[in-house]
């Protein structure tokens, strides 16, 4: 098993005729993901170079190809509509890669997704992967290996760094999820921790946080209460100055809260080991 995506994932790529959408649709197909459809309003009826049928709407992709998961590459101003379209069409998992989406659009779209009983990951995220089963994202599939470590991260390349270290130590991953670097995103630590805790194929969890907000503190409290599997954490941004956005829109220490020190302290207090460098994650998971 794994969480959220697997061999039954039937993916529709929203914005498949764009540069990024097309490129990653092809990468995901190559990895083995069932990319069953793409959308591009006004270009319905055509096919991509790889033979993926293109529809005008997600609705049609669901109707004709049984898509159950979508990945969004459309430009930021159109993301709100794209997310709502997917949720309205009955897509159960919506992964939004696009960066730079206005926060209030995310708030609105997320509420809509929730009201339809669907789930959203992102925006501004690298997607997720259940190695050997399905890649729904822009991650380099080849650095991941099937295994039993669940990975949750707010960052892209930092996830790869951690995963690369895990893989080199022979510790494969059940599912690795990049939740996104924006202040408001869909699924967050708590929801994913719960899924990993309930996933029989996940035996340990790596949590990669960063400055901004207090989701890590909440995650620490949640782990202490509900998670019995070993967890190791890493927090990026110890050296970040206050009030500066560190690349991610959500990575900002504001009004003196959201610092790495606070987050690390929360994990320590909950008995969760915190890595000083990403390379320490594998040993911390083994030690537990």
């Amino acid at each position, binding site marked *: 098993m794994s969480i959220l995506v697997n061999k039954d994932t039937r993916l529709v790529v929203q914005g498949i005729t764009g540069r990024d959408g097309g490129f990653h649709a092809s990468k995901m197909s190559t990895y083995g993901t069932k990319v069953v459809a793409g959308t591009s309003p006004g270009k319905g009826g055509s096919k991509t170079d790889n033979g993926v049928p293109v529809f005008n709407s997600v609705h049609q992709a669901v109707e004709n190809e049984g898509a159950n998961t979508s990945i969004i590459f459309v430009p930021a101003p159109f993301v709100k509509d794209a997310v709502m379209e997917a949720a309205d069409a009955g897509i159960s998992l919506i992964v939004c890669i696009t960066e730079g989406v206005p926060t209030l659009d995310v708030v609105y779209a997320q509420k809509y997704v929730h009201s339809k009983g669907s789930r959203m990951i992102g925006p501004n995220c690298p997607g997720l992967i259940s190695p050997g089963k399905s890649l729904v994202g822009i991650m380099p599939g080849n650095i991941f290996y099937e295994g039993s470590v669940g990975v949750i991260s707010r960052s892209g390349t930092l996830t790869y760094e951690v995963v*690369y270290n895990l893989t080199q130590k022979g510790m494969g991953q059940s599912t690795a999820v990049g939740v996104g670097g*924006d202040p408001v995103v869909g699924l967050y630590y708590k929801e994913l921790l719960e899924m990993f805790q309930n996933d029989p194929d996940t035996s340990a969890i790596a949590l990669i946080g960063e400055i901004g907000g207090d989701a890590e503190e909440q995650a620490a409290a949640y782990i202490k209460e509900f998670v019995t599997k070993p967890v190791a954490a890493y927090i990026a941004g110890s050296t970040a100055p206050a009030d500066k*956005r560190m*690349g991610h829109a959500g990575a900002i220490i504001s009004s003196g809260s959201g610092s790495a020190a606070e987050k690390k302290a929360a994990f320590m207090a909950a008995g969760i080991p915190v890595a000083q460098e990403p390379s320490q994650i594998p040993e911390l998971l083994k030690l537990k």
Partner: protein
Amino acid sequence: MKIHEYQAKEFFTQYGIPTADGIVCRNAMACADAYKELHSPKVVIKAQVLTGGRGKAGGVKLASGEDQVVEVASSILGMDIKGYKVDRVMVAKAVNIESEYYISLVVDRNTKSVVLIMSKEGGMDIEEVAAKTPEKIFRIPIDPFTGIPNFLAARAARLLFDNESIVKQAIPVIQKMYKLFTEKDASLVEINPMVVTKEGTLLAIDGKMNFDDNALYRQPLVESLFEPNAEEKTEQMAKSKGFSFVHLGGKIGCMVNGAGLAMSTMDTIKLYGGRPANFLDIGGSSNPNKVIEAMKLLLADTNVKVVLINIFGGITRCDDVARGLLEAFKEIETNIPVVIRLTGTNHKEGLDLLKDSAFHSASTMGQAVQKAVELSK
């Protein structure tokens, strides 16, 4: 993005949120004129700077009479508050305050919504109130579909105010704050203090607004108010090239792909006893031109003694990255040592390509950082 108090208050006025009358002035003479125009024996003169703590820094003072106004204004104009030079002050009617409150709207990560935050502890630092007496803070998450209907505004208002005449004034004010927040893509609308005057009127005495950078593309009016300082200008310039850049002041210039990895690189430098000069995320691919531009940015900082390039080769393989770097550095003239760390897909091939170059290369972050710290000393 931040704006000045007086600009926030202009938005308040536009949206019908009552504020104490005030006029923004760029010199002491203008302050004297403003004083006459306001017809108020006593006024407050407030430094307009894009940072907090101006009160403690002496940037807010009362004045009575034209002479004192000129004197006080002259003392505030030109002040330096946390690195910000005061070039504008607001001259505002002094108000007979009966009681002070805190009201703000802010995006909340946990409830994934806008949250209305209120407290009877107005005029104080709200973070301090939140830390010491969290029970004195009311938080009401707003449903984005329905906004703040009357009943909710009324319930909120009654949490703060006992007097029904004030409740009646507060209901539309709360609703208008939300309208302003959503229509302008704010990330913060704060009134602190919101006061009830001795005359029984609700007035915003101080106002603050921050905006969502991601939404500026559809808020040209807001964007036009952006006044970047020197650092922000550099960051903005970097942004126009597709970079995320933040100046930090150390000796080790960093160039990393990905924001999380870039932060992690800075942290690791610190861990190994060095000081990062900057945060720099060059984004996804690492084509030669991008590297050249990034190097220019790093080398513009004369503090930089060594450059650390930390690249995770994912979809772009390490050997391609290495080729790109070699090509880029043909065009870059510098004596500053460069440490390159390459990991990920095909990292062996990548490092092989760099073997005979002038770069110090490494395949783990630890090794690379250690080398860079060493070279920076």
